[in-house]
């Protein structure tokens, strides 16, 4: 395939206008010995051949009937209009809306996104998006250290292990120190030298933290330290108290649950929100409302750009340029589609269905619930024979839960189970049956 419109005649005409013999004359500035004959790649494909090849490749990935796997990436229902709207060429083939007058549609949409996210989280300011949850958290930490002019970060256990890994890299690169600690040990480490405390709730193991208590603790021992909350499935905000009601300074989340397909973990959506007082320190783009210069009509425009790399360069609040605009559009349309009652219902179903499974799994001999606090749509269960459980799931074509040894080698026989609104009573029964069969295969292995 080729997406070049010129025929040879046209090319010759154009070369004549330019005043060169042939196309290679245009590349004279390139040192001779740098020129290559060919990239040595296979020859191109026509569209039908391409689709065939790609379809075959896609089929090497297994697609399941239902899933009990979450751990930072979730299967929720995506209303059809989401894809329909983001596929409008005017949106998805446009660039960052630098020319406001020719980009009012997108600018207004981002403004509406900022509004709905700030209403959902009850935080004062939401930016136009970051890459994903993990990088949003890393940027939050860098922002906090900048605000506080301090370099030590406290990270509370239970943040997604991949997020923690990302933080580690950013801290190393940016010259920050971090301590990972149990929530119980927070008091020991808190001091006025701490830039920020970061925690996840519901955490990686699905547990909902007692945020009020945590915030109180921090404010007492380290009043000016920033408190950062991260979340991997914000559908829970249809049910749980929002960060804005909990005195959180920076709230970040992975927004993939809002109308974005899992697609192997990306692209997702980095939700980034802060208190008003940090407006000037927030990374990423912001859309603001303004008026015409020569009229009274209101419109939208990228604003407070002096924070950003293309103006502040090395002093910018972040290096981010391209973000995840189209994904924020998905999130916007998703939230509007399900609406208030819809989101509340979704959150309730996630919560009730997963707790239903949790309760009933515990009744099967050999299974033991490991999560102490209340859980949202994920929980940790100790299995008599985790590999058997996974085999049984595969047999009935349901995506098995996560073996925690994948991230924590010491957590033997522990599974992280996820249940969303998409898991019907039927599929839950199937899972319970699989769990039941699994105990009779092999002996009960010893946990940790």
């Amino acid at each position, binding site marked *: 395939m080729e997406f070049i419109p010129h025929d040879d005649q046209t090319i010759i005409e154009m070369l004549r206008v*330019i005043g060169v013999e042939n196309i290679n004359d245009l590349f004279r500035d390139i040192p001779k010995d740098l020129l290559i004959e060919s990239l040595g790649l296979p020859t191109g494909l026509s569209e039908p051949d391409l689709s065939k090849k790609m379809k075959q490749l896609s089929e090497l990935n297994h697609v399941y009937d239902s899933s009990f796997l979450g751990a930072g990436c979730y299967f929720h229902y995506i209303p059809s209009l989401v894809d329909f709207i983001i596929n409008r060429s005017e949106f998805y083939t*446009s660039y960052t809306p630098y020319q406001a007058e020719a980009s*009012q549609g997108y600018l207004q949409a981002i403004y509406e996104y900022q509004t709905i996210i700030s209403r959902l989280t009850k935080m004062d300011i939401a930016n136009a998006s970051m890459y994903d949850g993990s990088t949003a958290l890393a940027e939050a930490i860098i922002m906090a250290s900048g605000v506080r002019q301090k370099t030590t970060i406290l990270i509370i256990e239970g943040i997604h292990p991949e997020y923690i890994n990302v933080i580690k890299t950013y801290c190393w690169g940016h010259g920050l120190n971090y301590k990972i600690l149990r929530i119980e040990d927070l008091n020991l480490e808190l001091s006025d030298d701490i830039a920020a405390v970061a925690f996840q709730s519901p955490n990686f193991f699905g547990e909902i933290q007692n945020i009020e208590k945590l915030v109180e603790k921090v404010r007492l021992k380290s009043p000016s330290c920033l408190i950062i909350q991260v979340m991997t499935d914000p559908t829970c905000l249809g049910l749980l108290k929002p960060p804005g009601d909990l005195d959180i300074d920076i709230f970040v989340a992975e927004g993939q649950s809002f109308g974005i397909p899992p697609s192997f973990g990306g692209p997702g959506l980095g939700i980034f929100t802060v208190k008003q007082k940090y407006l000037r320190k927030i990374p990423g783009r912001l859309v603001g409302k303004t008026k015409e210069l020569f009229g009274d009509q209101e419109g939208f425009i990228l604003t407070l750009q002096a924070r950003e790399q293309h103006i502040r360069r090395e002093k910018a609040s972040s290096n981010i340029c391209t*973000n995840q605009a*189209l994904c924020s559009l998905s999130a916007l349309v998703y939230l509007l589609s399900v609406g208030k009652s819809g989101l509340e219902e979704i959150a309730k179903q996630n919560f009730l269905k997963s707790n239903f499974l949790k309760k009933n799994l515990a009744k099967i001999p050999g299974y033991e619930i490991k999560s102490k606090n209340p859980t949202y749509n994920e929980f940790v269960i100790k299995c008599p024979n985790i590999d058997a459980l996974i085999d049984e799931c595969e047999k009935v074509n349901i995506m098995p839960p996560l073996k925690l040894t994948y991230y924590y080698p010491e957590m033997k026989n522990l599974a992280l189970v996820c249940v969303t609104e998409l898991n019907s009573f039927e599929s839950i029964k199937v899972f319970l049956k699989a769990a039941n069969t699994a105990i009779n295969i092999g002996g009960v292995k010893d946990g940790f």
Partner: protein
Amino acid sequence: MGSEPVLIFSKQVKKSQKNFIPKMDLEEVSLENILPKEYQRADLNIPEIPEIEIVRHYIGLSKKNYGVDNGIYPLGSCTMKYNPKINEVIARLPGFANIHPLQTKNEGALTLIFEMAKLLGKITGMDGFTMQPAAGAHGELTGLFIMKKYFENKNLNKTKIIIPDSAHGTNPASAAIAGFSIIELESNESGEVPIDQLEFAMEEGDVAGIMLTNPNTLGVFDSQILEITRIVHKYGGLCYYDGANLNPVLGICRPGDMGFDIVHLNLHKTFSTPHGGGGPGSGPVGVKEELIHFLPEPCLISTHSGIYCRENSHTSIGYIKAFWGNFGIIVRAYAYIIALGAEGLKRVGQISVLNANYLRVLLKSKYNLPYDRTCFHEFILTDKKIPNGVTTEDIAKRILDYGFYAPTIYFPLIVSGAMMIEPTETETKTSLDQFCDVLITIYKEAESTPELLKKAPINTPIGRLDAVLAARKPVLKE
């Protein structure tokens, strides 16, 4: 009295919409028993809006927006080329869209990522690639982390990065996030890196290396490129290639051969994935052999029994993003590359340069061309020769009136009143001619009716907006 835009929130109705909620098919238990009241949310201020209203609202907004599918999008350094529709279809195949990053039956996905890395290696002349970075700037940061690690491993304290003043703002910003300080290098009159200045800077000793865009933002291919990389290497430094402008040399020459040690690419520029109004993008990073073991996790290796994730290497910089990068974008770019093949890609390079030079020559009669030489994918005009105090901004706004998108303006910073024009290879001669006519017409208007340009745009859904008001009194939500 000014008219206010109609926001979606005004379409609210009383009736709750539950079209998208599966039936609750297990017996309701009361929440309170399992979830303490103090954990529960009191209120949720999200509107209920009928589906048809949502669709109408956003179709309406889409009409107030402009994309490549509407017409030429000549934004310099953004490579706004046509986005093949087939790639959208492919990315939505269930085997790509509905797979979980932690599922174990993922051979197709791993193969695609692995193959893509190999393809990009061939295209750029690098030995290893990571597909993890989510965008260009994220790629830059990854590349700089690799530099940092490389010197850390050698126990060398290299704290500075050389960046030409023509560079994209992301370069210094990324360097700063990675903890480097910046030495800015002033481009010489022909827009190239001044060799003597470079050598002088390198002699300082604590310089980690240089970040270069080549062809640079002036559309100039640095003819001294081999000398530049030689000097940097001579002093033990590394050379970083900002791939934002790779398009014009695609299939013609390769950063790897120019002597670069690290490159990042923008799949959403060079490899046709839609920019989506600002993202998502993807910024893979390629390195030379000796840097491969610094690449971020997860890193794929192929063995006789298939493709596996490399065991966490101690020298790796670690993770820079969760899961597998922006996989959905990688799928589209992969499809684009194998669809075009070696020949197709070379045509991309050739024609993008042809189109740019065609425009350059047609416009130089009326517009000031600060760097009057054969350009690559893009070239720069300025408002210097424009009569009646008409500025670059006026011209940009007026272009919108004629139904086209404007070039990148006031960038690079080193050219005052710059208009940076990059037509890309997918534009027809007709659309190039039309765009050219528009610019010539605008020049004439500047002579005859300058006030028209000062007030532009007038045919857009809204007139020129007050950026100052927006920044002084920020209103960022409803």
